[in-house]
């Protein structure tokens, strides 16, 4: 086994361990704590965005959490693993935890903001950012060289399947959902 592969496996192992240990979570939008994982069940209490909690289990689109020794269920998207209490006091916008996006950006550890002029890889200069504002999209000039470059990154079916297997991904059969009223 080469050194690269060994490093990859070690990183995966370390991350898995830290993931198991990290049960601390933060409620990221104003939520109702339900007795059971169903909106038909009774509401135990309301929880404000920014409250810290522990994730105990997960079922479908629900997470079972404990907040100050009270256990109940919230929508899965309303709670996120990770203790963000250090920025708990930040302003909240529209019932959502405003620190979430900036935390995700930082957590990526990959890119740094460059005085709002654009983003760049860490330790490098900003790479020709041209932007995607409405006006810039409308006046964009076709770049066929970039298109050719994009072609070179395509993944063959064989490599795609192999990579999926390495990531423990198994294709399953799922039927499509019926249209909602909003889509009619």
């Amino acid at each position, binding site marked *: 086994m080469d050194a690269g592969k060994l490093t990859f496996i070690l990183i995966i192992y370390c991350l898995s361990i830290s993931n198991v240990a990290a049960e601390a979570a933060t409620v990221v939008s104003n939520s109702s704590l339900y007795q059971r994982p169903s909106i038909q069940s009774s509401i135990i209490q309301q929880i404000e965005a920014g409250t810290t909690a522990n994730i105990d289990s997960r079922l479908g689109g629900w997470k079972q959490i404990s907040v100050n020794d009270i256990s109940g269920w919230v929508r899965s998207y309303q709670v996120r693993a990770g203790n963000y209490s250090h920025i708990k006091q930040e302003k909240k916008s529209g019932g959502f935890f405003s620190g979430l996006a900036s935390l995700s950006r930082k957590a990526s550890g990959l890119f740094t903001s460059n005085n709002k002029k654009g983003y760049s890889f860490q330790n490098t200069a900003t790479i020709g950012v041209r932007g995607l504002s409405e006006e810039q999209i409308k006046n964009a000039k076709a770049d066929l060289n970039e298109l050719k470059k994009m072609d070179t990154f395509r993944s063959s079916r064989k490599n795609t399947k192999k*990579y999926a297997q390495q990531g423990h991904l198994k294709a399953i059969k799922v039927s499509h959902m019926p249209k909602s009223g909003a889509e009619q």
Partner: protein
Amino acid sequence: MKFSIITQLNLIVTICFVMAFVIQPAYSFDLNNFKSSIDKYKQKKKDIEKHKKSVDLATGNVSKKDEINIGRNVISGLLGAAPLVEHKKLQQYVNKIGSWVAMQSERPKLPWSFGVINSPNVNAFAAPGGYIVLTLGLYQLLENESQLAAILAHEISHVIKKHHLDAIRDTSQTEILGALAVKASSKKHREKMQKLVNSGVQIYARGLDKKYEYGADRRGVVLAARAGYDPFALLDVLTTLSSINSQDDSMSVFLNTHPPLSVRIETLQIQMDNHFPQMKIPADNQRLSVINQQIATSR
């Protein structure tokens, strides 16, 4: 009795041909004139065929080849607005995840191609034929591979349902659609194409009909689930986006071109409650974090 234009032209040329010989004793037969008539006829026939093609486009019949060429021209315009992030490993990673999700779709054999483009704005775009890009501003908000798959699955769904072709057609730009179906090759041709590309790209500044966005959410979560990912990850991404101040410049185009995030979350949650009630959520494979770490340390 009704004759089509082609039939009429055929008749005229045939009459010309016969007349040329009949009249020959009186007037000497001019081969050059005859050749010119034939050329004119051919040109006319070509024009009619071209017109017919536009009509076909109007009824929704775009061939796979045309669809791919339209997509290539349109995506080259978006790449002109923001180039690809210069990191091979990142681009290859996004292509592998996107291709795996696309393989679970109804059109697995399109030449699916994915990219991360260098823009701080938060957005993702799909072009006909299987061309999909997301911005660096959006990529760095993602916390795991399921969230990346969720975004790509949403865009893949737009391609599967040909939403952008419909949108161009709906704005009475069938001529543009037809012209965009031509492969841009020579430099001279590219210059002509530029104007058309701009017209095609307009759709991304204007946005799709909101019903298409709800449709892509609905279909996208199913594609992600088929590929073995956590289908609820799209709700996590939408929640992250909801936490960004709506006055933030990076969100302006996205918010102008999509339905309100809170409505998307609520709509999707209700649909998914019924479809995935007892689903055992697969554990994250941690690859996105690993890839990000590898990229960060490799530079």
